[in-house]
């Protein structure tokens, strides 16, 4: 069953199709959320909230009529932005300012973890659109056409956005080095 047929059935509240949608997209969404959030529980929350919003939209007669995958990733991305804004508005206690490292981690894993946090911090200094393009293009490996559907911009705009995003990320990472 292709994505469009699945979506049509899901819109008719076919339970099996709705379950299939979850099974098909939740693993990828989890990875996407984890890469940006760096936290398994937050990534699970992000996935759960994404599907909850999807069901709510269908219940209200809204939601996607096509490009289901793009819709789900856009929803997840918006949830992450909301989380980031909420988190940024709260003062961080000094003890939490240090990157947590698991007690039994090796020096190598600790180093990888620190690098991941540095890159995430750099990504969150980009605009949401730039961050989304970089994530979808270089980590989820989407095509420009798929990205254009997810962010609602034409392909040339996606390319331009990608170029500016890489320049900005490079600048941020080199500054923090």
């Amino acid at each position: 069953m292709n994505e469009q047929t699945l979506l049509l059935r899901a819109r008719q509240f076919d339970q099996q199709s709705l379950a299939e949608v979850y099974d098909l997209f939740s693993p990828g969404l989890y990875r996407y959320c984890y890469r940006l959030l760096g936290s398994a529980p937050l990534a699970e929350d992000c996935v759960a909230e994404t599907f909850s919003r999807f069901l709510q939209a269908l219940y209200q007669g809204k939601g996607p009529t096509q490009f289901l995958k793009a819709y789900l990733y856009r929803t997840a991305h918006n949830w992450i932005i909301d989380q980031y804004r909420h988190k940024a508005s709260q003062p961080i206690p000094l003890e939490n300012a240090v990157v947590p490292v698991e007690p039994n981690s090796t020096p190598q894993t600790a180093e990888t973890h620190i690098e991941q946090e540095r890159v995430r911090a750099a990504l969150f200094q980009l605009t949401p659109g730039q961050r989304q393009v970089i994530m979808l293009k270089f980590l989820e490996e989407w095509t420009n056409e798929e990205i254009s559907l997810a962010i609602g911009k034409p392909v040339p705009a996606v390319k331009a956005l990608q170029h500016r995003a890489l320049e900005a990320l490079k600048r941020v990472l080199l500054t923090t080095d």
Partner: protein
Amino acid sequence: MNHNQDLPPDLKDALNSLRAVPERNRHTAALRRQNYLASIKKLPAQARPRSFNISPRLAWLAAAMALVLVMLTGTTITAVAAQGSLPGSLLYPVKTSLEDSQLALAQNSAAQFSLLETFTIRRFTEMDTLLSANTKLPPVLADRLETQFQRMTALAGTMETPGMTLALTSLQEMLQERERLMTASEGHPDDPIYAQIRQRVREMNQLVSAGLADPGQYRQQFENQNRNSSATPNPNGTPGVGPGPVGPNPSITPGDGQGPNATPTPGNGQEPVGPNPSITPGDGQGPNATSTPGNGQGSGGPNPSITPGDGQGTNATPTPGDGQGPGGPNPSITPGDGQGTNATPTEKPGATPTPGDGHGFGSTPTAHPWGGKP
């Protein structure tokens, strides 16, 4: 598809550090999936088309709007239906109320007069319709017509001479035509209302002719009338009142000229009169207890040779012929009305009552020339 080749080397390593994702906790993933499936199962029972998703407040609002719409539509339909109603029918009061509203909205005397003319023609048409259906004319038709006559004559009296002449000429044309029609046909002798209307049309015709002949005197009558009305408020609030019907000889002005606070005296000519001069001299108090206060516009009888009334105006020295214009004989008039409410009858032995015609200028139903209901 690997897009990393598009990446600059210094960014490739940085982004690749995010590529590795720890294995998802199976237990947590299964739990989340269960939650999702549980929410799906609730969904079909709740799911419904968006268009029916109306909140209770919105539903109340829609119901209220629908009610208002129905009321407005109903009112409009009633008003339209009432336009074709005839006197005596259920919707006739709606029709006359609408006419009153139109009159209230008219901007000036000329506009009101024009509307009243239209409504008078409408009354005549209603009368013709009822008669052609062999229906007896209801008193409400005569009442309504009389009210309109009174308002028209009063309105004309408030106008400047050119406007008054124009208005009275127009009214005269209508009345003459109607009188001609009513005289030409034998009429409906069995219908008392018809006879009254015919009589009243004739009297109105005479009044209007007199007004056109001497606009100054016509206006003077209304000015006096207004003075009297302001001195003695009319409890019924009926506007203005026209002058009494003109008698056969307008040049005769026998009258009693009773002012509003006049002290009636027996035999002051206020008493009914008309064709029966042998009537017992009145005591100044008509049998009708609700007589119009203070209009006292009774006039002399139709007999030119009759002795002028004694003139009972306030502080006035009775002068023969100071009345408000001669009245015509109208036996149907309620005798003895037109006395001031504050009047105190006093005996005045030896006074010889002058037969008046009893056609007061009264502004209340008691002075109703139709002799209909008070």
